[in-house]
């Protein structure tokens, strides 16, 4: 019983810690447009680098973020991408890469509902501009296509 309670308390502390790391990670990413390293987040949260790396791994295991394979470097903190993609997003807060069309539009939603996505039709390479103003789609003829059924997204989150 005591061990179970202790385990629950340790678990809840880890969740609290991971929440702080998540918030700082997103704040830094939005501020700078660049994915923060675990060491940068550690300094801000007042943790050791190893503790922050462990938090990054737990957040990745929980599918909150995605790390570059075999590292603790951020690949995705959805909707933001840590690497350049075919989805450039311009917002009043700054410029970002989205992981896909959903995440590119999600970046605008996350940052206040105003911005533009620049991408291209994968079939013909024609540029596509999608603009959102005051929380409403203001420009954007075309379709979104999701290739992979929802239940299989996390089989390979880099291809959906």
């Amino acid at each position: 019983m005591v061990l179970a309670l202790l385990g629950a308390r340790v678990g809840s502390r880890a969740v609290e810690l991971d929440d702080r790391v998540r918030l700082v990670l997103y704040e830094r990413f939005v501020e700078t447009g660049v994915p923060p390293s675990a060491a940068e987040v550690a300094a801000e949260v007042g943790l050791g680098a190893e503790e922050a790396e462990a938090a990054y791994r737990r957040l990745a295991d929980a599918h909150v973020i995605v790390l570059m394979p075999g590292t603790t470097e951020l690949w995705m903190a959805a909707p933001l991408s840590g690497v350049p993609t075919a989805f450039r997003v311009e917002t009043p807060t700054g410029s970002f890469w989205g992981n896909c069309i959903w995440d590119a539009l999600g970046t605008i939603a996350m940052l206040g509902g105003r911005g533009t996505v620049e991408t291209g039709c994968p079939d013909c390479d024609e540029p596509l501009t999608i603009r959102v103003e005051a929380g409403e789609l203001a420009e954007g003829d075309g379709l979104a296509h999701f290739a992979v059924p929802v239940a299989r997204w996390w089989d390979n989150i880099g291809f959906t």
Partner: protein
Amino acid sequence: MLAFRSEAHVNRWCERTGLPKGASFSLETAWRLADAWYRDRLSPSWRRRTPEEARAVFDGLGLTGDFWRLT
């Protein structure tokens, strides 16, 4: 998850790449999905949606059927 000019472009791309066609829908719906899904992502109280909550978001936008099943 890509954006195409039209259904014909989706079909041609699927044929060329050999990938099966998934789900296609308007960019208006894509925006509403993105807004519902990500609007609160920077909130301190944000947490991952449960499967039931995710299903409710999809259902609310008419995104139903086997493709949208979570398990």
